[in-house]
């Protein structure tokens, strides 16, 4: 059976409703196919979770709490409008162009500094994990003591 066929049977296999012969075929395939085995592990929780799940019933206290928070929210919305109306807008608008110019100049300086500090090489694209594995496998055969190459970070 192909992977596609196996996946079609996975739910039935997990629920134990497959014919013994078919179940054996699925099992044999799962022993050797990592992708289907992962799929199977992802699915194996579903029947268990569905069996345990029951919809939550909201209590009376929850509604009281929501109402209280709504009231507090509407009170909070009033305060900022009062505060903002007192802002010295004229002073602010007078200095706005100068402040913008200063910010642009500082940003340009920072950008120039960062650009100059860039290394001369270009960033690498693509995955080279197979080369990492090859390197680690080789380095490991040299007798270094660490075990971390055995769990390659993905």
């Amino acid at each position: 059976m192909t992977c596609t066929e196996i996946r079609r049977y996975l739910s039935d296999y997990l629920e134990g409703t497959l014919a013994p012969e078919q179940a054996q075929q699925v099992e044999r395939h799962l022993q050797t196919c990592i992708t289907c085995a992962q799929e199977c592990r992802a699915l194996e929780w579903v029947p268990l979770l569905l069996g345990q799940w029951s919809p939550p019933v909201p209590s009376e206290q929850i509604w009281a709490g929501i109402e209280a928070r709504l009231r507090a929210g509407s009170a909070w919305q009033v305060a900022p409008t009062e505060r903002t109306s007192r802002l010295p807008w004229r002073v602010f608008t007078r200095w706005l162009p100068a402040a913008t110019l200063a910010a642009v100049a500082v940003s340009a300086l920072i950008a120039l500094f960062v650009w100059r500090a860039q290394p001369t090489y270009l960033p690498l694209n693509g995955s080279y994990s197979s080369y990492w594995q090859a390197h680690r496998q080789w380095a490991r055969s040299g007798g270094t003591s660490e075990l971390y190459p055995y769990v390659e970070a993905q």
Partner: protein
Amino acid sequence: MQTMKARWLAWVMVWLVLSLSGCHRQTTLTHAPAIWKQAILSDANRTCQMEVQVQIPHSEQLPALLKVYRPHPDYTEIIEQGAESCLIGGREYRPATYLTESERIRWLPLERRCIVIPRLPGKSIEAYIQQLFERNVRLREVERAEWQGKQWTVVEAWVEGGYLRKRYWITTSSAPYVGRIQTYNPQGTLLCDEQRFRYQPLPISATPPAPPMPPSDWKIERPVQLGPFDPKLGFKLSRYQPPKGYERVEVLKRSCPCGGEHFAVGALYSNGLDSFTLFLLPAECPDAQRADRRLRLSEQPEGVVATIRLADGRALLLVGEIQPQYAAQMMSGE
């Protein structure tokens, strides 16, 4: 009088420069107990059985639990419990069970177990790396700590101009051994925390046990082929000088790690603590064709990967534990 003053001043300056440049530290390190080095160097050969927890904090990977059984220095059986995938020595996400040049691996996805039985390691390479370790590695005591109800001396090891710093937790007992290894990169990121539990020394068996034959249903996923080595290729690589402290440990013509049918030349460099590989990819390799005439380099927590395409269509690829600026210097030899 003036010349006398000048001479004194010169001496003071020399002393200051030497102290600040680390010579003082080196003096103290040469007196580091030989017992630490012995414990670290014999770590890979100790006959023992233990459980090991390997954590890679910078990744999202869950801790790996390994059972290690080593009845002889040349034979180790490692079983990874609860393995989500087996990425050892092969391509990622490929079905399942395969052999490689250096080890037999059996990956049982449904049982979440990964069994590794390495073959004999290259003894000459191992000895060479140990020599480099003896020569280059500096040690200093960082702290004394209590862990698992025992007293440990935490010893930091590094090589000047190298990449990794490793903290070895060594018992203060009469037969010291390493119980924990923490690996850091130059930015201070903890790359790996390897903790050993239930350590039990084993009596050395007279000969290494014969590895079990693989079951008939094992699939050989990616056998590593060795090609005839042409000395000219070694010469070609020798124009790329490694940074100070690193030396070329081995050069091989082998099947290309990209997984293609062609061969690639690979050279392993080490300074005793850090290692990297320089691959010379043939022009027909898709990764060589993808490479740029300008150096491209990516810094990863574990080290660097760098590529450059040569004028004749082949490409250089460097992978491993080396500081990016040294990798760039080395590969600009073209």
